[in-house]
């Protein structure tokens, strides 16, 4: 049976870490909520209580509407694609094909790179007229495309960069899961005459569920919190076509110096993340119990 925690030990063990955590996680979250009901202080007058004025502004903000649509497309596009690719990569790397070490290196390398480095690499790759993308299109006699400079392609181009960076990390988790699938299950299925596709769908897939839950939750959080590439590659442009929510918070707060609206957007983001996480957990858990 565990002992009672003496107060002295409690202060030493929990005091510093918990106060740091509260100061930079809970306090700012609550402070954002409070600040969202106040307007910005200026040199002439102090900040004043404005009620839900900032929240009314949310509904009239056309840029925000665009940003939320972009974020939704970004999350819905990148997460399933990255997960699908990660499973495929894990199957390849886990197979008995020659060269799996090099394959693993190739798939996992982008994950090791900072998003800033990845952004530079792809900025160069996409560069109209200069980059490899244009050179390859040129070989086939196709005109070069301004991937990042056109409203039609900028968001998709950013999504591809994100998938490129993340799929390798998810592959590692699937690789671990694949290696822990008991071989006797697969052997049994084989004895029953199941082909490798059947074995994958009926034996392996259900065992990958917990990994998928873990990866999907992580991917969702990442889709919201990682916007380094947006800052470096497009600054949300052209015409907001590639702006994501956290990038918009950054721009409103630190470029336009509108801290009150920044706080309001932060509250919006925290609420959205909370709802999404609960929803995702609930849906995936239900599916997991279904079988």
């Amino acid at each position, binding site marked *: 049976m*565990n002992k*009672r*925690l003496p107060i002295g*030990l*409690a202060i030493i*063990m*929990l005091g*510093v*870490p*918990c106060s*740091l955590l509260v100061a*930079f*996680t*809970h*306090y*700012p*979250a609550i402070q*954002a909520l409070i600040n969202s009901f106040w307007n910005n202080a200026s040199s002439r007058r102090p900040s004043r209580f404005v009620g839900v004025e900032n929240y009314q502004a949310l509904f009239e903000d056309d840029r925000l509407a665009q940003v939320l649509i972009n974020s939704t497309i970004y999350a819905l596009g990148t997460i399933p694609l990255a997960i699908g690719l990660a499973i495929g990569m894990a199957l*390849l790397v886990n197979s008995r*094909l020659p*060269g799996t070490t*090099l*394959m*693993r*290196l190739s*798939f996992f*390398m*982008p994950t*090791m790179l*900072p*998003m*800033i*480095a990845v952004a*530079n*690499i792809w*900025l*160069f*790759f996409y560069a109209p*007229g*200069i980059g*490899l993308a244009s*050179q390859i299109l040129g070989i086939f006699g196709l005109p070069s495309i301004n991937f990042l400079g056109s409203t039609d392609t900028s968001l998709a181009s950013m999504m591809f960069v994100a998938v*490129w960076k993340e799929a390798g*990390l998810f592959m*590692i988790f699937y690789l*671990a*899961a694949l290696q822990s699938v008991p071989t006797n299950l697969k052997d049994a299925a084989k004895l029953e005459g199941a082909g490798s596709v059947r074995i994958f769908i009926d034996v392996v897939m259900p065992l990958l569920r917990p*990994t998928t839950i873990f990866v999907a939750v992580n991917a969702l*959080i990442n889709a*919201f*919190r990682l916007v380094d590439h947006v*800052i*470096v590659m497009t600054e949300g442009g052209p015409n907001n076509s590639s702006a994501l929510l*956290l990038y918009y*918070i950054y721009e409103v707060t630190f470029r336009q110096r509108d*801290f009150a609206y920044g*706080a309001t957007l*932060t509250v919006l983001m925290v609420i959205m*993340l*909370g709802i999404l996480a609960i929803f995702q957990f609930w849906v995936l858990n239900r599916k997991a119990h279904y079988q």
Partner: protein
Amino acid sequence: MSNGLNKILLSTFAAVIAALWALPFIYSVWTAFHDEKYSANFQWDAPWTIANFLEAWQAAPFSVYFFNTLILITIILIANLILCTLVAYAFVRYKFRWAGFLFALIMVQLLISPEILIVENYLTLSRVGLTDTIIGIALPYLTSAFGIFLLRQTFLTVPKSLDEAAQIEGAGAWRVLWNIYVPLAWPIYLAYSLVSISFHWNNFLWPLIVTNSPEVRPLTVGLSVFATVDSGVEWSLVNAATLMTTAPLIIAFIIFQRQFVANFMRAGIK
């Protein structure tokens, strides 16, 4: 039979996919080692050079950036290892009121990570005058819910009998922690350190907001300034700088590849 043909087809397919996946990175590396005039026109026999690296190194204070990043990841790693160990140990070995509630409060950080709270955290930092300092970049990351979670899971697997035996021998709380819990969690410490180092080596948005002057910039912020301002956007220079700033991580990864992957797996699954 067709099995052999299948295998050849599948191998070719896998090799092509892996090569295409690595292509943007390989091309960037190739450009970094060649003259600027080849960056827009690939020529397989173009002469190799390291001039870009020398020029990039001189064009911006990369040695300062490297130093800052090293200080930053060291501060965060040491603080994380100590603080997360203490919290995890308290939760596993002792019972106290509100323990479950407190644990749930800590786990909130997994969802609402410091990146999302940049607005208010920046205001906090400027109120205490720590903007534009390395310690200011580190502060929100000194405790990590992920680290606490990971260590708690590990400490839970330590056999109670070992703990009790040590107590009978007269070992106090700290001796038990140091001689029993920490050694048994060694692989997890290693895994966590690798994850932490690579995360903070790569972190960009928060340091970008907090820092203003070149003296405190970490590598990622320095690189982005270099790529947009200092280099005059010469692609061979940008690629050389990109490669240079990430080389230590890449080399470390290639050397420790097996342990790294194994540890990443362990970190993710438990």
